[in-house]
């Protein structure tokens, strides 16, 4: 466990040693390390395999732009595929595995693909694998799928929890490098509410990776001191380990905070990550820049890295990728890497600079006007081939090569609202354009300001501008070297020179794509998959654009970029879901009798967010049908009780309440007497039935409207629309009271006798006839509402008390009803009884049916205006052979009539053309002793008594049925009025 490439310095805590394992081998590192820095320190360069050719790969970068060093982190259910070793904070006991290999990382059997690469060029799969047709799913695709993909999911439930949260601020600063820190300091000292977020666990950005001073101390120390001051300000919220993933509308930002990813596992009750929705009045993007590579043959070997990454590993992590390093650069930044590494005792084999006037250094050779044209080494870099200015070739021995092709400002968030970046010749890169997200400004390297002094200045100025502050604070003196770059994208004549290292897109692929006519930037991306890997092309896109531009004879800005899309870095799906998973997916609504029903052993069912008792099994009942049949029979014979609280209740009040309901319902309500209830059908404006229910007039200016359970919210919204937007001067007040009242249906011939024991008033048939309603009291004075309405077809009531008394009331009803054998019934028995009675519910009022379909065509008043009346008169909704609701019973009483089955004529073909209708609701009727159903049948009203076939090819049913009236029980309604 020797850390053979550990060198002096860095911001790691050498006093502590952390043990970790990679591919089963144990290693040691220190707090402050990333997995990649610790592996490099241990002399491990080979970290992964590429997507297509399974080429050996090591870390290219030291940050979130990493395309190569992807690992499966942790094990078991916490296994996390495609995790960038370059951003994983080392912890004790860390477990990582390499991925996308068949066999071991060193001997990947699929490396054969690399040998076949000449056949596997861009888009090759579009041109073959077409014959025979059936072979795609059976042979080709499984092979391709197995070889593709990267890491694996465990297949087990994610054991961690995720939080969501909401933050508000005056200024969101994205990135805590020199620009972000200067901005935060400026804004924070001015008293503004500031959020400073950075994806790194250590704030400071490049300052932590450089050796130059800021003021009188090192850049890293200045960063630490600044962070300490910011932490002392109560108006500044520091959010390290937080990536701002997207810029959404109107100053809303998504921020992912990795709360526990640097721990072995989250503490109990604590989230792994938090997805913050940040509402920022202004935002300042200080996201820095990303270095880009240069393409040359075999530029993907482990050890070939970005120059500044080598510097980061050396300066920040005290890790050398190798003891012998070469540099390939087109700008001065490459020389900075060489100087820093040299100072750390790393041998610089050569600095290869394409510029003929490159600066020289006394201690190592600088090859001016030279290019690296190829590399050698099996599982890691051993030599580079250099073509010198005079054309001669030279071999240079090195274990790492730092490539520096210039820097790309991280403009991503400026483009999340479809803004386009613009080209800046001075730095040969795209910088943010004019069309930024509202409220956003950009500072520092993200804005193309590449010097540290410039970053400090522009960060401070950005804060001043954003908050309209008077003055800029004093800033420390620091590095202010100008950018000196000669654009250089790829070595001429190279072929297998990698642009997109993860997706294995080479210069050759881009050329082929151009040759085949895929010449727009979006076509190139899609045809070659350039930039579609997990790094979204952060290090690859520019090279591809440059080559495209050259082939097309255009400039890079003429070619343009592909669209930048959120998230900035890939984000766990679990974080987007937060707590809304498992039982927490949606809130659960419990009825007032829930606890009591639980005590009775009820079986519950989800109805929207409600949990309702479905049936109440009794001892000895082994099948749900036994319970349901018993509940139905007992109710029809004596009395049953059912919690109907879930039905929507809306109190409609005001002097114009009656006029309002007259508009809402297609049937008339103006003349409904106080103390009476009426059934109402409401239409959508398009004339289709929307919902049905009852409206009870408790006073001249007070109605209580019921809706179906599912439509409580839409109906309330609709009523508010009709009131506020269509008839704003009606004096109407709408209050949803669904949850204010516990409501029970008490049904059956003995329901009155039972309720007489509970209700304080006279509810005899004369005093309280069918369709009566009243405010009453129960049990000696508790305020209550009583409605004589019936869904079951029996003598029945619905009784409501304030919800807090619902539990007591159901217990009282059960106690007082014992002498009648009162039976609680659930939604199944409720459904059976309403089908027996022929009442429609959501199965029938399904959003496509009209009043006429439902057999209620005559309810649509022609004497008044109501919502939907005009459009309900269209010819297509009034055809003679329209679907009509009918009753259906099997010819053979032993047969079922399943819902979802289709009706066909007794003779003739069975196909869609001859379809006559379908079954909407079906059940076994214990009263009739056979199955019954409701359904819609063409011209159904005139086909009572006809025999049809009922077919359900899906479930293998074909049976003969007879069309009957939908009112199976008590068609005259005598029981209701008893």
């Amino acid at each position, binding site marked *: 466990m020797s850390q053979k490439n550990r060198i002096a310095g860095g911001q790691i805590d050498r006093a502590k040693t952390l043990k970790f394992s990679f591919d089963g081998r144990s290693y040691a590192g220190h707090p402050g390390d990333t997995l990649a820095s610790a592996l490099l320190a241990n002399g491990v360069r080979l970290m992964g395999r590429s997507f297509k050719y399974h080429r050996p790969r090591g870390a290219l970068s030291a940050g979130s732009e990493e395309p190569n060093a992807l690992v499966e982190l942790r094990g078991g259910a916490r296994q*996390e595929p495609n995790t960038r070793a370059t951003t994983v904070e080392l912890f004790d006991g860390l477990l990582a595995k390499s991925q996308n290999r068949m066999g071991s990382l060193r001997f990947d059997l699929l490396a054969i693909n690399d040998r076949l690469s*000449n*056949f596997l060029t861009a888009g090759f799969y*579009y041109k*073959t*694998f*077409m014959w025979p*047709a059936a072979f*795609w799913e059976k042979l080709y695709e499984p092979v391709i799928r197995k070889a593709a*993909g*990267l890491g*694996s*999911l465990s*297949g*087990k*439930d*994610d054991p961690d929890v995720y939080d969501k949260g909401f933050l508000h601020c005056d200024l969101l600063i994205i990135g805590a490098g020199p620009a972000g820190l200067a901005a935060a300091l400026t804004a924070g000292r001015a008293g503004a509410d500031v959020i400073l977020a950075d994806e790194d666990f250590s704030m400071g950005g490049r300052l932590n990776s450089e050796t130059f001073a800021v003021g009188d101390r090192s850049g890293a120390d200045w960063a630490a001191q600044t962070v300490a001051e910011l932490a002392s300000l109560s108006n500044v919220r520091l959010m390290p380990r937080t990536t701002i993933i997207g810029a*959404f509308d109107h100053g*809303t930002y998504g921020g992912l905070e990795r709360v526990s990813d640097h721990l072995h596992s989250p503490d109990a009750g604590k989230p792994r990550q938090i997805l913050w929705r940040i509402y920022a009045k202004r935002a300042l993007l200080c996201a820095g820049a990303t270095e880009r590579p240069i393409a040359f043959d075999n530029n993907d070997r482990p050890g070939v890295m970005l120059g500044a990454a080598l510097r980061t590993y050396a300066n920040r992590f005290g890790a050398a990728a190798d003891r012998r390093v070469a540099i390939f650069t087109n700008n001065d930044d490459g020389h900075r890497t060489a100087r820093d590494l040299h100072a750390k005792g790393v041998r610089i084999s050569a600095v290869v600079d394409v510029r003929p006037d490159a600066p020289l250094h006394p201690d190592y050779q600088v090859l001016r006007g030279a290019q690296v044209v190829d590399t050698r080494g099996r599982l890691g870099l051993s030599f580079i081939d250099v073509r010198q200015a005079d054309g001669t070739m030279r071999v240079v021995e090195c274990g790492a090569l730092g490539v520096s092709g210039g820097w790309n400002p991280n403009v991503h968030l400026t483009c*999340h609202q*479809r803004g386009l970046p613009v080209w800046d010749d001075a730095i040969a890169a795209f910088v943010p354009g004019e069309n930024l997200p509202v409220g956003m400004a950009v500072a520092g390297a993200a804005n193309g300001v590449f010097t540290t002094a410039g970053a400090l200045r522009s960060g401070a100025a950005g804060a001043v501008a954003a908050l309209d502050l008077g003055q800029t604070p004093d800033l420390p003196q620091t590095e202010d070297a100008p950018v000196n770059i000669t654009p250089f994208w790829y070595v001429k004549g190279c072929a297998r020179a990698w642009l997109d290292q993860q997706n294995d897109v080479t210069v050759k692929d881009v050329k082929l794509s151009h*040759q085949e*006519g*895929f010449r*727009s930037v979006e076509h190139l991306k*899609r045809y070659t*998959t350039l930039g579609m890997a*997990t790094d*979204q092309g952060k290090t690859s896109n520019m090279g591809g654009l440059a080559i495209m531009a050259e082939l097309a004879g255009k400039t890079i800005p003429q070619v343009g970029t592909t*669209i930048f*899309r*959120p*998230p900035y870095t*890939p984000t*766990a*799906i*679990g974080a987007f*879901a937060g707590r*809304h*998973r*498992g*039982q*927490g997916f*949606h809130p*659960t609504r419990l009825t007032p009798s829930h606890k009591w029903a639980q005590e009775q052993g009820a079986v519950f*069912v*989800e109805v929207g967010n409600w949990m309702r008792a479905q049936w109440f099994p009794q001892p000895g009942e082994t099948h749900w049908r036994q319970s349901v049949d018993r509940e139905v029979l007992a109710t029809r014979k004596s009395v049953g009780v059912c919690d109907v609280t879930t039905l929507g209740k809306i109190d409609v009040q005001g002097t114009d309440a009656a006029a309002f309901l007259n508009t809402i319902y297609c049937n008339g309500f103006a003349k409904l007497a106080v103390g009476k209830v009426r059934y109402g059908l409401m239409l959508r*404006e*398009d004339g289709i039935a929307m919902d049905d229910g009852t409206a009870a007039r408790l006073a001249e200016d007070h109605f209580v409207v019921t809706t179906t359970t599912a439509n409580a919210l839409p109906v309330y919204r609709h009523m508010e629309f009709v009131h506020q937007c269509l008839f704003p001067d009606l004096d109407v007040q709408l209050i949803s009271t669904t949850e204010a009242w516990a409501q029970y249906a008490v049904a059956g011939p003995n329901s009155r006798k039972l309720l007489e024991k509970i209700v304080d008033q006279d509810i005899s048939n004369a005093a309280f006839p069918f369709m009566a309603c009243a405010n009453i009291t129960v049990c000696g004075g508790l305020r209550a509402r009583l409605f004589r309405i019936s869904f079951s077809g029996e003598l029945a009531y619905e009784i409501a008390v304030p919800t807090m008394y619902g539990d007591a009331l159901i217990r009282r009803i059960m106690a007082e009803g014992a002498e009648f054998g009162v039976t609680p019934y659930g939604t199944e028995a409720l459904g059976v009884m309403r089908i027996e009675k022929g009442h429609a519910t959501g199965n029938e009022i399904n*959003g*496509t049916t009209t009043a006429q379909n439902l057999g209620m065509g005559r309810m649509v008043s022609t004497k008044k205006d109501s919502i939907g009346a005009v459009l309900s008169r*269209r010819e297509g909704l009034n055809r003679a052979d329209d679907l009509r609701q009918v009753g259906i019973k099997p010819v053979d009483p032993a047969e079922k009539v399943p*819902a*979802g089955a*289709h009706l066909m004529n007794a003779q003739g073909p069975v*196909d*869609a053309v001859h379809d006559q209708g379908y079954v909407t609701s*079906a059940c076994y009727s214990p009263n009739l002793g056979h199955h019954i159903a409701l359904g819609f049948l063409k011209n159904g009203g005139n086909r009572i008594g006809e025999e049809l076939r009922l077919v359900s*090819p*899906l479930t293998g049913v074909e049976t003969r049925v007879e069309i009957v009236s939908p009112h199976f029980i008590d068609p005259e309604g005598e029981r209701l009025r008893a």
Partner: protein
Amino acid sequence: MRYSGLRVIKEALTGHKGWTPAWRDPAPKPQYDIVIIGGGGHGLATAYYLAKQFSQKSVAVLEKGWIGGGNVGRNTTIIRSNYLLDGNEPFYEFSLKLWEGLEQDFNYNAMVSQRGILNLIHSDGQRDAFIRRGNAMILNGADAELLSTAQIKARYPFLNTHDARFPIKGGLAQHRGGTVRHDAVAWGYARGADSRGVDIIQNCEVTDFRIENGTCLGVETTKGFIGAGKVGCAVAGSSSRLMAKADMRLPMESHVLQAFVSEGLKPVLPGVVTFGAGHFYVSQSDKGGLVFGGDIDGYNSYAQRGNLPVVEDVCEGGMAIFPMLGRARLLRMWGGIMDMSMDGSPIIDKTHIDGLYFNGGWCYGGFKATPASGYCFAHLLATDTPHQTATAYRFDRFEKGLMIDEKGVGNQPNLH
């Protein structure tokens, strides 16, 4: 040039020098028999079938940007024909049948993968509705199978059947459904149309119609006037904008639909799964990314991007049925403009202007319809009569009350 495995091998051995552009880049001619506006999937398919099936020799496709840059290049790649209503199911089944022979037909591997689509069922009422739908599918000649939870669990062992807020009570499967490599559809149709003489003209935006005495004579474009015997519009989310140039108001709104892809993963999801108690559907691409989506954002938009609440809503749906997804990462989210019609169903019809034809209103389901939409639009353009599977897709169905409303939510496009 005919594509084949042999050809790939030959080119590999000879330095890939023989590959030619997949389609030409012609300048527009002054006059065509038929001009299609819109170089998306539907427009290119229309041109392809006009040339191949209806022997049209003078056809151009005008595309304001690059072909395939709209919804055909920005969707969740699902094909299926699991519709309920008479107006729809024969059409979508016709489309699925065309998918089944498409690659051999246009000599391009679009990776039509019939790996099956599964709609999960979470309540008895939903089961009844799905049985009705499955029966309608079978009665229309499509395939459907009702699966038990145990059968589903055998194929998707990591489904949440232990802690689900809305328990899974079965599913309706269509085994012939699946996915297709979406970009390749546009490219395959383009290549096939081009090789049959269709001019595909990119970067050519239509700025106006030339309409005289109630007849459309052609289009003004950024590349000049192009005359046409007939003009067919197939521009999806831009339909209202385009048809406004002909003074038409359409029964549709444009909405943003977001879609998502995860990082590449080793194979884990064999087919397409849709969640019946939330807004979520998912499949896994051949490259390994989980491709998923959910509901539209719900407000009119041409911005091709959405907002966080819907992203969260979709991921919540994903976690509800596949709790393993928590540790997969969302790589990229994007938005397309959907031509959401007033009943959720499309229009393939003549307009009141002679020579001007319209194809649109595909909502968020246009991709699967691509072959049949192209075929039926080509049929209408070539013969002036609707194809038998598309007779219901008329403009006047709203006047007549003959809506084709699969979801039963009425004239509010964002609910479809």
